């Protein structure tokens, strides 16, 4: 029965994806056992920025007792998300702590010492069936749950949905592709919590009035495919369709998935919503379900712990704020090959300096490995063009590299640097071992820097022009006043002249130009 459901969504009608590479998945070891639940640690470290946008601002003070699920930092501004306490305890500090977002450098965090009771807070509004809420209310509610994109970009989900609601979006694409090597948290989530994922999809579809949902899963995940197919046949929701996709990295990228499933290209600088698609990670969908239908805000997530640097690779369900050190200790500790700690996958992960960093909403994988490459092995580019063959965006990395080295902003824009998704395919195949991804990241930052400089220079220029104009007007006015006074002096009689002289003696101010005031 489940086989037919899987075959019912054939792959031959998928769109074309240029380039990409086939990578060894390295997911067998971490998917050999069920998701293990990490117990609540003694201390939780909750960064104020676990999402794109403005940091949340704390609403609790040091020494305050908090309960599980309680709001401890509220969203600040249009693009932001709240943070909730992952367990009950006492706020012992609000101070900088190493975070993975900054590669191990510190950022402001709320630190909670847990009391072990794991007492949940009472909900301000009780859970009601979501169909009874109007969609706008539902979107506001999603915002309050601290839900952000769990695929790695951590974009605040509510704002993403609100933006989508202004456009004619038809399709929800559930991203269960997980194409990056080593990461398997979405795979395990789909195997064990497929119902939560699909019910979450239904909530999202209701919120935006969507009529079609594609669940995209890579073909190297047969267990997940079967499980989702089984649950789908039980749910009997005609709108949701299972779509196995070929196992090519980076087909799980947002724009790439849209191209693959719907054969439409997301315009440069645009979003999937511009071509009628909303993409959500399966973990995000499950989180939406848990918050809207069960009242639990985003306080835990499934994370893969893997690599040859950990003794027992596995997937864990851990509370947000548990340090990586605690998580790895729970799984059995490090091996002697633990040389680098990567938060994320093998291609796009962040190499961090310390395991004191907490597990946050974005932490999909804790990858501990030995060093695979010697540093500083770069040779000159030989223009072999292999990088261009594998680029999913049909960029020419070899040209971009030349222009990045030359710091030629115009040419970089012309050749589409801003369209680079930083997948690392070009880096992988380069025979000269050039750090292309790093160079493009720097070049992008440089372009933003130059754009900022330009904007500032433009503002300064306009201010200067306005000031010059103002001066000219003042100058003109003074001259007119002076001319007026001269005329008055000539036409005035001896009596008026006497009065003027008296006035000037009193004020001790000559009848001439006023001194220029201090510059403004």
């Amino acid at each position: 029965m489940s086989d037919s459901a899987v075959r019912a969504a054939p792959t031959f009608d998928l769109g074309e994806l240029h380039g990409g590479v086939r990578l060894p998945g390295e997911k067998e070891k971490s998917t050999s056992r069920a998701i293990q639940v990490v117990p609540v640690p003694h201390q939780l470290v909750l960064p104020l920025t676990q999402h794109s946008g403005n940091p949340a601002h704390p609403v609790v003070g040091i020494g305050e007792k908090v309960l599980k699920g309680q709001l401890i930092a509220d969203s600040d501004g249009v693009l932001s998300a709240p943070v909730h306490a992952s367990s009950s305890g006492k706020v012992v500090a609000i101070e900088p702590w190493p975070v993975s977002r900054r590669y191990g450098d510190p950022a402001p965090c709320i630190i909670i010492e847990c009391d072990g009771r794991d007492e949940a807070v009472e909900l301000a509004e009780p859970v009601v069936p979501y169909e009874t809420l109007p969609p706008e209310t539902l979107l506001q509610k999603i915002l309050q749950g601290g839900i952000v994109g769990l695929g790695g970009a951590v974009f605040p989900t509510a704002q993403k949905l609100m933006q989508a609601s202004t456009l004619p979006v038809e399709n929800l694409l559930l991203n269960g592709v997980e194409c990056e090597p080593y990461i398997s948290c979405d795979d395990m989530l789909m195997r064990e919590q497929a119902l939560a994922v699909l019910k979450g999809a239904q909530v999202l579809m209701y919120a935006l009035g969507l009529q079609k949902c594609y669940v995209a899963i890579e073909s190297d995940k047969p267990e997940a495919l079967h499980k989702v197919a089984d649950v789908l046949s039980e749910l009997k929701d005609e709108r949701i369709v299972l779509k196995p996709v070929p196992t090519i990295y980076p087909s799980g990228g947002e724009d790439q998935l849209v191209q693959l499933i719907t054969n439409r290209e997301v315009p440069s600088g645009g979003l999937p919503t511009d071509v009628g698609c909303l993409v959500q990670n399966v973990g995000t969908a499950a989180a939406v379900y848990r918050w809207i239908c069960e009242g639990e805000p985003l306080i835990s997530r499934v994370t893969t712990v893997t690599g040859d640097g950990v003794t027992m690779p596995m997937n864990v369900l851990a509370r947000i704020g548990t340090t990586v050190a605690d998580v790895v200790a729970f799984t059995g500790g490090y091996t002697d090959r633990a040389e680098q700690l990567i938060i994320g996958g093998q291609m796009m992960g962040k190499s961090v300096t310390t395991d004191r960093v907490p597990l946050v909403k974005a932490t999909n994988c804790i990858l501990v490995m030995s060093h695979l490459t010697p540093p500083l092995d770069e040779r000159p580019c030989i223009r072999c063009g292999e990088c261009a063959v594998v680029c999913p965006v049909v960029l020419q990395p070899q040209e971009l590299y030349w222009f990045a080295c030359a710091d030629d902003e115009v040419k970089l824009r012309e050749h589409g640097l801003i369209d680079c998704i930083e997948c690392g395919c070009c880096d992988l195949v380069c025979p000269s071992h050039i750090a292309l991804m790093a160079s493009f990241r720097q070049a992008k930052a440089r372009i933003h820097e130059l754009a900022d400089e330009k904007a500032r220079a433009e503002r300064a220029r306009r201010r200067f022009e306005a000031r010059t104009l103002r001066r000219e007007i003042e100058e003109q006015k003074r001259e007119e006043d002076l001319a007026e006074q001269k005329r008055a002096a000539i036409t005035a009689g001896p009596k008026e002249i006497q009065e003027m002289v008296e006035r000037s003696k009193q004020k001790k101010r000559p009848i001439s130009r006023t001194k220029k005031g201090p510059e403004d």
Partner: protein
Amino acid sequence: MEFERREAPYVRPPTSVGAMMREVLYALIPAALAYVWFFGFGFILNLLVAAMFCVIGEALMTHLRGRPPEAALSDFTAIVTAALIAFSLPALCPWWVTATASLFAIVVAKHLYGGMGYNIFNPAMAGYVVVLVTFPTYMNFWTAPRIGDIDYHFLNLYETARYTLTGSLPDYLTFDAISRATPLDTVKSGLQNMLTFDEMYSNPLMGDFGGRGWEWIGNFTAIGGAWLLLRKIIRWHIPVAVLAGVLVPSGVMYFLDTGVHASPGFYLFSGGTILCAFFIATDPVTAATSPRGRLVYGVGIGVLIYAIRRWGSYADGVAFAVLLMNMARPAIDYVTRPRIVGHAKTEAR
């Protein structure tokens, strides 16, 4: 626990420039064996001299430029340049001719233009052209291939080495006695003398397609080229484009007037066409970089090879064709940029 930071991606690179260049050298072995079989030990001596001077040139220039020589030498590109020079020169070639070609290729064409990855002109072809123009007598000293029914003079190793080092032949031979026209020379002078192809082909040096011996070298070169394609060291665009660029015009002209034009097969199997298609034009640094660009680049080379052979004064046009297309390459790259995903087709460039 603390960790050391590295840059993403965290992967072992699957290949390196050195590995690619070594594959190119392996792919040249069949052609080298055929060359030695038909034309003697001279090729090996030329190869040794060229390799020595290419390496000397590379080491000297990297030292002068303040770079570590090991990095430049370990990628084997100097050896590949030496091999291509050795394939271009006649088997019997004095060492100073080979040395000039090698030094010019590495020092001038490669390093004075910026070094590895920055040079505009194919170094081997630039070196060859310099000695072709500077030492015409030595560069036109081609000998007969080792084929049973023609009189060829195969110098033994000592005699070959003596010629390579001193430029003097054994006493019992003279230059005129052993030098022969290449098949391309035969056809070119034959056409000038208004011979028909039947008359030209009655010359025992002419084989079924190209010259005898040369056809076999072409076959073995193609085997090496196929190996490179299978191993994905090169992609199909340039070889196919070069061969098409030679075959299509020659095919058309042959079709228009068989008596006056040599067959397309002749152009394919004589001289350095196949070597150019798979090994010379595919030099990544000096070739176009996008798929469409490579097709244009390859076709340009092929057409120029045919044009120079048919109407130019040089017998073989491979080197000039490559150098001319090297000049056009930046323009080709600019015009043939592929459309980026998410950009409109007609975006102004």
